[in-house]
């Protein structure tokens, strides 16, 4: 399978200063193996576009502690106290984007759309400095498309062509992130032969996926707390 690479290979595709689009919602559907590789590297000044920044020392929280990050763009960082602290200390830039606007902006980035007008956040601090336009009597703000140098996503299965399916709500931001990175790397639990995935169940067609990395974590399907 051509697209399959070793997890350490991903460092060849990521440069200092890059913008990375990272799938996941909290720690769910997050490419933890890829994040581990990156956290152990000496990459610097990365901008992360992701809904959250993981939790303290977990998921994308590791990248923060390892000193890779310059900036984070996402909708909710409050649950990672390290992120809040780093921001307070002036060590991390944060750009807050409503969750739906984030999802749509990344989709536009992947879809050749330059920007879109949304009702979300009109009249709030988030809209400050953004262009307004009235359609049919309602005010909208202009939001720009978001693209990335590299997308890091997490899927349940890939087939040997690179088609992807996701695990329940683990799909979250992964499917849009897959469309908007110049290079797209998917971490998967399992690889199956082309043809084993039903054409109707494939969520991310293979043309979006450049590389596949096998997950080093064994999925805890039954987690006892």
């Amino acid at each position: 399978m051509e697209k399959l690479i070793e997890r350490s290979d991903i460092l060849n595709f990521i440069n200092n200063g890059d913008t990375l689009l990272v799938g996941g919602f909290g720690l769910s559907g997050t490419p933890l193996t890829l994040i581990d590789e990156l956290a152990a590297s000496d990459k610097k000044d990365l901008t992360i576009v992701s809904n959250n920044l993981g939790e303290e020392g977990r998921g994308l929280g590791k990248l923060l502690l390892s000193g890779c990050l310059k900036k984070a763009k996402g909708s909710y960082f409050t649950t990672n106290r390290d992120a809040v602290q780093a921001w307070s200390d002036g060590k991390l830039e944060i750009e807050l984007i409503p969750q739906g606007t984030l999802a749509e902006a990344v989709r536009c980035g992947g879809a050749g759309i330059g920007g879109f007008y949304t009702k979300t956040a009109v009249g709030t601090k988030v809209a400050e400095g953004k262009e307004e336009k009235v359609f049919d009597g309602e005010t909208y703000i202009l939001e720009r498309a978001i693209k990335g140098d590299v997308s890091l996503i997490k899927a349940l299965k890939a087939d040997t062509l690179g088609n992807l399916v996701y695990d329940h709500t683990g799909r979250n931001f992964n499917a849009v992130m897959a469309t908007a990175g110049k290079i797209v790397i998917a971490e998967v639990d399992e690889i199956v032969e082309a043809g084993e995935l039903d054409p109707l169940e494939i969520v991310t067609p293979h043309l979006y996926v450049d590389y596949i990395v096998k997950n080093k974590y064994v999925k805890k399907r039954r987690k006892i707390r």
Partner: protein
Amino acid sequence: MSLERIKIAKRVAQELSDGEVINLGVGIPTLIPDYLGDKKVYLQSENGLLGMGPTPDEENINMDLISASKKPITMDTGASLFDSSDSFVMIRGGHVDLAVMGALQVDQYGEIANWAVPGKTILGVGGAMDLVAGAKRIIIASRHLAKDGSPKLVKELTFPSSGVRKADMLITEHAVFKFTEKGTELIEILSDLTVNELKEITGAEFLYSTQLSKSES
């Protein structure tokens, strides 16, 4: 879990109708499913599920099947899965019948402040502004007073607004308020407070029918 929170959740549950698609915010709204009785509603979770079921038993937890509050969940019969962008097509596009959310403040016309405290770090908004902009109906479920004792229902917001779209209703442990163009209307008292006592712990003026006034004060 405080009795007041349960009381609020129970009262909100009465507002729900069979067949409605509902998005529940964090906090008090997450208690509502326990008080639905025979009502059949469909819970939408913005991380990509319509038809959220109850919490699984410990053996069936899958951390890739979670609510937007990041708690393990199950799927109801007829549930469907989708990605974040499609989830916000539903929310922003006006396909969710009702959003129930908490608030830091609500002004007399129903404008909501529920994401940021002035002077503090503003680092989380989540899907709140999308829900405020797009849900067909919005009910604020909240304690009547903030932790510092200040009223949540105020004349004018001093906290940052979550959008120009107004809430339809505020339900606290003491009262049910409706928001209209005229301002706030008290439609029900839920505790043993008199109207006058309620006025004292509320930051905005409100209308009420004399009938309500008589029976309750």
